[in-house]
């Protein structure tokens, strides 16, 4: 993957979009990989008792997808410093998720070349279900 440099980044620029299609199998894999065995994410009857139409995608899986959006963009020499998300809507297995981001600020602080971003997960209807913010540090060109 190509390395992104601080000089390459402009305020207002968009990150390359990443698409994900979590399935029921993905949710089971995530339960095993993350240790989150809450039945809401794989047991239809349980989910319906709680008022959901069926199992929902783990919010933390969406967060993990967002970290991939960022680490893909910043390259091996970039550093993910901070990430914050709010879970405002539900995603369901089989629904395509679209992840994106936009640069909101560039600054140099404490010798670090920092880039602040808005990030989001949109559901298959284009509704922003998981907005958030992130801060990354990038290398400068020699």
């Amino acid at each position, binding site marked *: 993957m190509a390395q992104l440099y601080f000089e390459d980044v402009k305020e207002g620029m968009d990150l390359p979009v990443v698409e994900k299609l979590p399935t029921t199998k993905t949710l089971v894999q995530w339960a095993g990989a993350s*240790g989150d065995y809450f039945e809401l994410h794989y047991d239809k009857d349980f989910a319906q008792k709680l008022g959901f139409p069926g199992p929902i995608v783990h919010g933390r899986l969406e967060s993990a997808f967002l970290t991939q959006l960022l*680490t893909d963009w910043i390259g091996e020499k970039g550093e993910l410093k901070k990430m914050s998300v709010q*879970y405002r809507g539900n995603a369901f297995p089989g629904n395509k998720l679209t992840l994106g981001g936009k640069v909101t600020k560039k600054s140099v602080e404490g010798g670090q070349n920092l880039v602040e971003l808005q990030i989001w997960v949109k559901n298959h209807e284009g509704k922003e279900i998981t907005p958030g913010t992130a801060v990354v540090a990038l290398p400068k060109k020699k």
Partner: protein
Amino acid sequence: MAQPKKATLEDIKKLEGKKSQESMEIDQHMIHLFTECIGDPNPVWKKGIVPPGFITAAMVSGGAMVLGIPIPFPRSVAGGADWEFLRPLKAGDTLNTTHEFFELQDKSSDKGPRALMVYKSTHKNQKGELIAVSTNTIMSY
């Protein structure tokens, strides 16, 4: 996250400050399970570097699961979370995490009962160096 038993707001308020510690050694297989699940083929993660997203996994920063604090209302869902990544983590490192039930916020209104349960977690490596800090909010309604 887990769905623990219900309790009153007063009972839960008394549990603010409750802490729990856990420890896990990170190996390449755990990294593989994580990256395979999210569909992240970045070759960097095959070099023993732990993806920062690994810290988002419930077993790492899901204090709600570990502490078993009861919920006040019938339903609970994840409300939000934030992470600050301070040092890289590598395969072979041991991650020592302290979870704390930080506070209960009663947000009930004329629209109905609602509460936010805030958990904070501190993650250190085997040398005691701070790797990350995270906050996790559960909404019960």
